[in-house]
């Protein structure tokens, strides 16, 4: 065994499944001089990997998590540590059956074999189960168990064999040193350990539940919390002892009791997510010496488990009640939870300091590969945007936020989560200046990046009568949950007159200084060397030409650009620009989000309304599309930008925070005589946008999609260099392997007669239910679904195989295990509504 060397190319902190997988992939990708340290001994240093239940159910509603899981399974199989057992997810209620039908959509979308089966089918494979306890099940034959400790050893040893790796166990990190560069960015320089210092320009924190503590040493937030997952082992059970090997019966997830039953040799492990959330602080995890078993196997609190024990017994009385079967091992095992349920991966705000944490066994090797690729090439093959450490806003970096959100979410681990479901805890972190006014208007708030955003306004309920059936009401509870027909009424009123939209959640940052132009040009695809006062809409790419974002840039001066981007992804965008800042000691990025509120005014009457409030020229001739300048709105100086995400004439108005409430009221007041109403994000984010075929990052646009596939290529590519330029040029030469299309649903009638409305994520199939596969080997699924009230249609967007991307092509969408006919309406960015974009002028 080695001692800590004085220098390293990269230091990986942690030797659990993630750290081990990471060193393996780094070595494979050509990294040398890798040093891996852990405070515990090998092969089991005492983290969460050591007590994991080690089973893998591949189907998740998230494509990102599913892809990481599938890649992990592939790697586990290659290492020979995967045993296929099959797995059931049981439904005790009809609501759960419906959720399992929805799960079938995800399985089909991600191309994983799964079937809905009856209790008799389950009984055949799990003879000791009581069939009167449940009504059906979701059967995934490819579920299996892995030996994650063995996998870790294999991967570590493969890296050791290349000579690229030095492993030093029982060494504890006591500090991380950073220094600042000319652009005000910090960078990692050194890892301090109990065995001496290691100079390194790249460091990865991959130490699971301890990661926040290590992150704090460099002043970065890794907002995860150690949380208890209870598990007991009952045995020996004669029914299991008769079988050879570790696992011979499928794993059973009892979804409605939040429990699982997993055979382990002659024992049955019962795990639970049904208890209260039991959270710990990373600093309160015992040391190896203090712990009875391991630091992450905390003392079992049997009271919390008792209700689950009873439910498990009901399900498997003969097995769990067998003579001689005793509860011998019971732990409160620690695992990592985050405020949004996603892992925490990527480079932190400290350059060279990476993190790979809050990762479960099922994702471990996939995450190791993805992060190693990211570190090597600047992007992973699997898009991991939702897991980017850069995503967190200030309010999310607080431990309190993580605690409250995970407390709320823990019980939902096996829960039925509506895709639009909002958190209840730790809300109202950021309130726009017009929040009080919005409450009076009966706003129904969704949360974005901590901001409370009206999704619709009950004050507009009277419009329902005005528009009647044109608001496309939804009769099924699931389809209409977290939704209101008022959204569609607001939409119609905006198209008819005008709407005023609070967009305070936008992230806004200024890039100023002698290197501002170069910094912005390097980051953005579109030509940003434009006249002062021009507005540019642009994608932002990674090195392989995948989307990192799409946003707008305004040139406010020769050396002054202002970037406006969505709140949800704003922090990651900020990092993209920060990464490209020219290091001249004078060019700076300044976050203006908290200084400026954004108010949108759009609709055929928008110009009349604005004109009534200003003496500035707002005519098309005087204030052209894609330009910006300051105007006085009733005496308040406001930066106005003529741009639209809803396909209407109008402006985004950037108003100083303290004046925003006044401008909001002024606009509503002046607008009312023109028929304008306050309009919520339901219109801005979905209905208004999809009628115009506008793409949204995180839905249609992600790291695995190209500009060409998204149908967003422009005739020319600027000569100035930018991230992803080479890849983009190459993509333009190739035929796309998949094409983003817009479809409309032809008939919503389900077998029961009720009309159903898709919500997104559903597989697109041939009319008779046949599978489609694009040139990437992916199956098409709905990226956005929503009403298009002005078309009177329900619109779906999806990437289709190029041969299917034909206007008028008749396909089907599978929703809750029924097929609905759809027709392709657009195969590029051409909008279904107002294809000539006349309304915007």
């Amino acid at each position, binding site marked *: *065994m080695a001692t800590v060397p004085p220098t390293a190319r990269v230091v990986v902190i942690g030797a659990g499944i993630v750290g081990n997988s990471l060193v393996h992939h780094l070595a494979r990708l050509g990294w040398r001089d890798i040093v891996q340290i852990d405070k*515990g*001994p*090998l*092969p*089991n240093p005492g983290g969460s990997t050591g007590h994991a239940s080690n089973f893998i159910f591949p189907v998740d509603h998230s494509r990102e998590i599913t892809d990481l899981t599938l890649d992990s399974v592939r790697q586990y199989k290659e290492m020979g540590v995967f045993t296929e057992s099959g797995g059931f997810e049981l439904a005790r209620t009809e609501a759960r059956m419906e959720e399992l039908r929805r799960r079938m959509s995800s399985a089909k979308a991600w191309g994983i074999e799964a079937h809905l089966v009856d209790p008799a089918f389950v009984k055949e494979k799990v003879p000791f189960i009581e069939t009167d306890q449940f009504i059906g099940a979701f059967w995934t034959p490819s579920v299996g168990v892995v030996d994650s400790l063995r996998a870790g050893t294999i991967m570590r040893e493969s890296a050791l064999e290349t000579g690229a790796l030095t492993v030093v*166990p*029982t060494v504890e990190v006591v500090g991380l040193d950073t220094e600042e560069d000319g652009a005000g960015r910090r960078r990692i320089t050194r890892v301090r350990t109990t065995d001496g210092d290691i100079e390194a320009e790249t460091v990865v924190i991959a130490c699971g539940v301890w990661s926040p503590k290590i992150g704090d040493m460099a002043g970065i937030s890794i907002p995860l919390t150690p949380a208890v997952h209870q598990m007991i082992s009952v045995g020996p059970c004669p029914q299991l002892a008769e079988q050879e090997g570790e696992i011979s019966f499928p794993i059973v997830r009892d979804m409605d009791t939040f429990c699982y039953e997993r055979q382990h040799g002659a024992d049955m492990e019962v795990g639970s997510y049904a208890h209260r959330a039991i959270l710990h602080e990373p600093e309160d995890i015992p040391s*190896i*010496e203090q712990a*009875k*078993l*391991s630091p992450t196997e905390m003392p079992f609190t049997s009271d919390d488990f008792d209700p689950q024990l009873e439910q498990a017994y009901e399900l498997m009385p003969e097995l769990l009640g067998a003579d001689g079967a*005793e509860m*011998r*091992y019971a732990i409160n095992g620690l695992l990592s939870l985050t405020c949004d349920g996603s892992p925490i991966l990527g480079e932190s705000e400290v350059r060279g300091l990476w993190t790979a944490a809050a990762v479960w066994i099922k994702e471990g090797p996939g995450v190791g590969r993805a992060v190693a690729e990211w570190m090597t090439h600047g992007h992973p093959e699997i898009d991991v945007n939702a897991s980017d450490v850069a995503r967190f806003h200030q309010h999310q970096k607080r431990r309190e936020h993580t605690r409250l959100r995970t407390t709320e979410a823990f019980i939902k681990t096996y829960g039925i989560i509506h895709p639009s479901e909002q958190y209840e805890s730790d809300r109202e972190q950021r309130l726009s200046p017009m929040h009080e006014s919005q409450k009076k208007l009966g706003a129904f708030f969704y949360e974005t990046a901590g901001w409370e955003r009206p999704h619709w306004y009950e004050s507009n309920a009277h419009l329902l009568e005005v528009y009647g059936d044109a608001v496309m009401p939804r009769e099924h509870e699931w389809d209409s949950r977290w939704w209101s027909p008022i959204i569609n009424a607001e939409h119609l009123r905006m198209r008819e007159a005008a709407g005023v939209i609070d967009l305070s959640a936008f992230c806004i940052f200024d890039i100023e200084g002698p290197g501002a132009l170069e910094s912005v040009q390097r980051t953005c695809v579109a030509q940003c060397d434009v006249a002062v006062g021009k507005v540019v809409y642009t994608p932002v790419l990674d090195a392989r030409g995948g989307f990192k974002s799409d946003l707008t840039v305004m040139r406010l001066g020769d050396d002054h650009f202002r970037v406006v981007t969505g709140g949800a992804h704003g922090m990651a965008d900020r990092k993209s620009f920060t990464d490209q800042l020219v290091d001249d000691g004078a060019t700076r990025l300044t976050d203006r989000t908290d200084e400026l509120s954004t108010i949108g005014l759009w609709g055929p009457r928008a110009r009349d309304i604005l004109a009534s409030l200003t003496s500035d020229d707002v005519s098309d001739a005087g204030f052209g599309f894609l330009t910006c300048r300051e105007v006085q709105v009733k005496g308040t100086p406001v930066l106005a930008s003529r741009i639209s995400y809803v396909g209407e004439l109008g402006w985004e108005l950037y108003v100083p925070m303290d004046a925003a409430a006044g401008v909001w009221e002024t606009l509503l007041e002046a607008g009312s005589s023109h028929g304008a109403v306050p309009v919520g994000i339901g219109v801005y984010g979905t209905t208004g946008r999809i009628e115009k075929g506008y793409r949204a990052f995180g839905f249609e646009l992600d790291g695995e999609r190209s500009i060409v596939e998204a149908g967003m290529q422009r005739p020319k590519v600027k000569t100035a260099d930018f991230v992803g330029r080479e890849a983009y040029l190459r993509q333009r030469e190739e035929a796309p392997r998949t094409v983003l299309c817009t479809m409309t649903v032809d008939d919503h009638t389900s077998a029961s007669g009720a009309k159903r409305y898709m919500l997104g994520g559903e597989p697109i199939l041939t009319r008779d239910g046949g599978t489609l596969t694009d040139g990437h080997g992916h199956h098409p699924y709905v990226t956005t679904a929503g009403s298009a009230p002005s078309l009177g249609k329900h619109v779906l967007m999806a990437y289709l195989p190029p041969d299917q991307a034909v206007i008028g092509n008749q396909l089907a969408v599978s929703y809750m295990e029924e097929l609905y006919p759809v027709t392709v309406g657009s195969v590029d960015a051409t909008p279904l509504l107002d294809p000539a974009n006349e309304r915007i002028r």
Partner: protein
Amino acid sequence: MTLVLVEIDAGGVIEVSRETLTFARSLGDLVDAVVVGDLGDAARDQLASYGVRTVHHATGEAFDAYAGAAWAAAVQAGLRASGATHLLAAGTPRGMEVLAHVAAREDVPMAANVLSAEGSDPIVVTRQVVGGAALEEMRLAQSPTVLTVAGHAVEPRPADAPGAADVVDLAVDVSEADLVARVVSTEEPEPDLSGGLRSARVVVGAGRGAGSADGFGELLELTELLDASLGVSRVVTSLGWRPHHEQVGQTGSRISPDLYIPCGISGAIQHWAGCSSAKNILAINTDPDAPMVTKATYAVIGDLHEVVPAINAEIRRRRAG
């Protein structure tokens, strides 16, 4: 005056009682002893060498078979006869039991397993708690002060000036009730249920580092190669990985082999109490700071699942060669 309950076996005054006499002298007062049952000349001479002034000797039918309460009555008579204000006994099962009886009968506190005492009025003692893993400072404010002295708290050391050790017979008033709980038979020492563990020359130990019930293969192989016994830590038995009779420790078997090879045992005090008599300890542990490593004679730093197979292979290689 300090009175010490002294235990005597075939070899004379037992070691812990001699330690207790040494401890008693350090309290500064004269030391008397109380002995129940047989007292040979050799033992008397030992008591003299340990500075005992008077030996209060209780004999008679009441003490033919052991009864804790009867012994307590004898010690109480010794207290009266000596006028002692401190009462000490060795921290043996008998010493603990008899002094607990006396403390209950005198309605005074008792401190068990004392390591040191300081001050007077009140005396503050430091004693072992949590099986020796922690210490407690405790006030003893009532008279007589009653305490038992932990084994190895002091080195047994004869007095600079021997005592007279005059033997005085005690008149003890033993009541009927004091004899109800009385040993009715004593048989040969109970058969060794530990599979020879207690008398083994070599013991291979295994702790939670074994990892699972299936993690003992290499260890059993080493056990076989060395003709040794397997001993395990408490965690291992409480997890059901190995049977209870293999447990070494304060509450399991106490072993005294020529060589103890604890593998993946951190060396909690509980376990240490059972293996500290081993002549040599060769610890295999991943943690160089583990108590078992720091207390060992030899150590290998590493995972037992890597080290033990290598040792097995090396032994086979040398034997084959």
